[in-house]
C-alpha cells in the first residue's frame, strides 16, 4: 500500500500527520540479492503529537517524538535479517493530534485495519486502541501503569516497558541488599506520582523495608528556567524534609518537577532514590555491559542523541516482532503472539539474560538497571532473591499475584 498516494487522493485531514518511512533495503551478497520479498510486515507506530515537557535540569534536552528513533533502529536491524530471508518490513508512523481521536487517526493512516501496532501512548489511549482493534497485536512501549498488567490487561497487548511495580521492586531489592531499611516517601501532586508512590509502598512491604514518614509535595512549580532558582530551594527543602531518622529518601515525581531539588539539600544527609537520584529504569545512557555499548553507539549514529527508555522499549518491540516474523515466516498477529509467548522466544536486549514475556499478562521480563545520573550502580534482581521459575519474576506481579484474567 502507498499511504502518500492515498493521502494525496483522499485529502484527509489526518494525512498531514501520516508519514511513510521508507525502508532501507540493504543489498548483501548475490544469494541475498536473489531473495524475493515473500512476506511483508506493516507495523503501525502510534504516538501523540504533543510538545515534550521541558526537563528540570538544563543538562537534559527536550526530545521530540521520544521513542520513534528506537523503532527506526529496530526496523533497520530487522530489515538486515529480512533482506537475507525475503522478509520486508515497513514502519508507518501515525502522529495523533494532541486533542485528536486515536482511532480516527489510525483509520486515516491505512486502507485496512492495522494488524501490528506499536503504541507509544498513555494508558487511556492504549486501551482505546487495543479495544478498537481486538484482532491486532498491540505492543505497548510507553505506559508503565500496573493496572494494565493486572485487572485492565488485554488479550492482544504485550508490554515492553517494566511496570511501576517492577521498577519499584528493582530498587527495593537493592535497598534491602544494602540494608537501607528505613525509608521516607515524598510524593508529587500528579496522579502518576501517586501511582509511583503506591508501587514503592508495595515493594517496601514486599522486601521488608519500613516507611518512617511520608509527605506530599504540593507546590505548583513556576518557570523551569530562572536565573536564581537555587536560593528558594536551599530554604524550602530543609524545611520540607523534617523527617525522623531514616536511611533513604524516596521520591515519586514522574514529571520531573521537584525531585531533583532534594539531593544535597534535605535536612539529613541521606541519598535520594526513586524517580530522581538513585533510579530504577529499563535503560540508561551509562549502561555499557553485555554489549550495550554497541547499541548505544548504533543508536547515537542514527539519532544524534542519547537513547532513552522509550527508544529502548520501541527497539525491543521491533526486535520482538522481527524475531517472531523470522521464526514463524508469518506476519499474522495470532501466529506472532503464539510464538512470542512460547518457550522458543528468547530476546537479546543487552541485559545479560534472555528476555521473554509472561504468559499470564503479556509483560516482558527484564532485569532492572539501578542508576545514578551518570553511572550504572547495580542491576536487579539482586543476588539471593530466589524464584522457582526465573529470578526475573521476583520483579513485578508474579503469577500467583496476577489478577489478569483475559490474557491467555
Amino acid at each position: 500500500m502507498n499511504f502518500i498516494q492515498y493521502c494525496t487522493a483522499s485529502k484527509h485531514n489526518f494525512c498531514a500527520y501520516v508519514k511513510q518511512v521508507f525502508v532501507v533495503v540493504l543489498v548483501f551478497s548475490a544469494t541475498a540479492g536473489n531473495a524475493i520479498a515473500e512476506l511483508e510486515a506493516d507495523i503501525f507506530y502510534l504516538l501523540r503529537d504533543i510538545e515534550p515537557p521541558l526537563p528540570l535540569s538544563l543538562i537534559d534536552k527536550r526530545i521530540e517524538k521520544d521513542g520513534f528513533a528506537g523503532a527506526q533502529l529496530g526496523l533497520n536491524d530487522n530489515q538486515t535479517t529480512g533482506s537475507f530471508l525475503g522478509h520486508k518490513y515497513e514502519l508507518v508512523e501515525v502522529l495523533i493530534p494532541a486533542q485528536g481521536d486515536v482511532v480516527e487517526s489510525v483509520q486515516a493512516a491505512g486502507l485496512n485495519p492495522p494488524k501490528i501496532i506499536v503504541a507509544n501512548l498513555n494508558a487511556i489511549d492504549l486501551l482505546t486502541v487495543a479495544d478498537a482493534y481486538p484482532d491486532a497485536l498491540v505492543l505497548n512501549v510507553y505506559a508503565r501503569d500496573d493496572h494494565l498488567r493486572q485487572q485492565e490487561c488485554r488479550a492482544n497487548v504485550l508490554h515492553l516497558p517494566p511496570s511501576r511495580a517492577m521498577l519499584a521492586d528493582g530498587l527495593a531489592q537493592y535497598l534491602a541488599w544494602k540494608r537501607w531499611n528505613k525509608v521516607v516517601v515524598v510524593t508529587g501532586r500528579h496522579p502518576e506520582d501517586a501511582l509511583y508512590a503506591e508501587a514503592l509502598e508495595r515493594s517496601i512491604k514486599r522486601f521488608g523495608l519500613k516507611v518512617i514518614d511520608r509527605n506530599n509535595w504540593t507546590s505548583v512549580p513556576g518557570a523551569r528556567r530562572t536565573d536564581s532558582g537555587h536560593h528558594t530551594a536551599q530554604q524550602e527543602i530543609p524545611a520540607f524534609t523534617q523527617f525522623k531518622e531514616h536511611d533513604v529518601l524516596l521520591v515519586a515525581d514522574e514529571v520531573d518537577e521537584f525531585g531533583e531539588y532534594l539531593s544535597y539539600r534535605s535536612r539529613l544527609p541521606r541519598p535520594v532514590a526513586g524517580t530522581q537520584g538513585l533510579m530504577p529504569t529499563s535503560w540508561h545512557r551509562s549502561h555499557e555491559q553485555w554489549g550495550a555499548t554497541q547499541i548505544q553507539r548504533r543508536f547515537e549514529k542514527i539519532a544524534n542523541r542519547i537513547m532513552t527508555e522509550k527508544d529502548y522499549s520501541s527497539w525491543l518491540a521491533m526486535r520482538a516482532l522481527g524475531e517472531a516474523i523470522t521464526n514463524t515466516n508469518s506476519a499474522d498477529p495470532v501466529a506472532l503472539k503464539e510464538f512470542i509467548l512460547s518457550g522458543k522466544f528468547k530476546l537479546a536486549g543487552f541485559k545479560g539474560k534472555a528476555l521473554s514475556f509472561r504468559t499470564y499478562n503479556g509483560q516482558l521480563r527484564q532485569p532492572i538497571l539501578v542508576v545514578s545520573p551518570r553511572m550504572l550502580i547495580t542491576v536487579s534482581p539482586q543476588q539471593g532473591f530466589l524464584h522457582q521459575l526465573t529470578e526475573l519474576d521476583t520483579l513485578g506481579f508474579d503469577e500467583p499475584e496476577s489478577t489478569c484474567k483475559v490474557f491467555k
Partner: protein
Amino acid sequence: MKRPSYRVCFVGAVSLMLATNAGAYSIYVSNEKDNTISIIDGDTLKVTDTVTVGERPRGIVLSHDSSVLYMCTSDEDHVEVLDINTLKVTHTLPSGPDPELMSLNPEGTKLYIANEDDNLVTVVNIDERTKDVEIPVGIEPEGIGVSPDGKWLVNTSETTNMAHFINTDTLKIEANVLVDTRPRVAQFTGDGAEVWVSSEIGGTVSIIDADSKEIKHKISFEVRGLAPESIQPVGVKLSTDGSNLAYIALGPAARVAIVNMETYEVEKYLLVGQRVWNLEFSPEQDRLFTTNGVSGDVSVIDLKKQRVIKSVKVGRFPWGLAISPDKQG
C-alpha cells in the same frame, strides 16, 4: 586445619608431574579492562609477565610461527602487533572500527576481522599492512571461523542471529544460516565437515553441515540448580586429537561443558571461574585453558582427568587466549 594443606600439596605435586609431561609452552591472555596481556608459563602455570597494550584488548591470535601476537585493541580501532621476543608492540594493522574477534588464514598472510560497530568483516593483508576488502554482514558481527582448507569463512552476527558463509575466493556471502539468539563463536571441525556456532542468549550450540549449510543438530544444556537463562554458551573448542570431544564455555553458568562430537550428548560439566568466556588447548591438547571474565582468572583443565587443576589470577576481565608451543623469552 590439617586436611586442606595436605590437599594443596597434593594438587601441587600433580600439576608439577603433569608439567614435566606437557612440554614448554606459553599462554597469552588479553585483559579487556586492564589493557594488558598476561603471559603464563605452561610449566609452572604462573604469570611471568604482564605487558601493557592499547585500549580494550579482546581477540588475540598468534602468527603460525608464534613470533608475533595480533591483538584486537577494540577502542583503538586497530590491531596491534606484539613481538613475542621483545614484548614490544612493533606496529599496528588497519582493522576497521571496533575490531573484536579475528582469525588467520591457513597461509598466515591474512587476518579476517569482525568489526562489531560497523557490520563489516575486514580482510587485512598482514605483509602489506593494508585493508584488502570490507565485506558487509549482519548487525554486530562477532565470531570468525576459517575452514581448515581456508576456502570458507564463517562469521556470526549477534543481532541478525545468523552465521554467514563467505567464500574466501570471491569474498561474497554464499549462505546465511539462521541460528539461535546472539550467536558468538564459530568453529570448524578438524575435517572441515561441520561448523559449531554458540548462541549466547539462545542457550544452544548449532551444528551446521558445512556442505549443505543446514543445521543438523542443536545442543542444549542443563545444569541442576541453575536457571536456564544463566546458561550462555560462548567459547567453543573442538578437539582434533582423536578424542572426539568438544568443549563449550557457558558464561555466567561458570561451567565448561564436555560434549561427545559423535552423539552430541553433553558428558560432563566442569566448574570453572565466573563468566567463562573463551577457551584454548595446550599444544598437545592435554589441557584446556579458560578466561573467566568476572573472577579475573584463568582455569586450567586437565583433559585426561577431566578436572580443573588450577586457577591462575590474571588482570581484570580476561577475554582472549592464545597459546604458543614455544616458551616466551
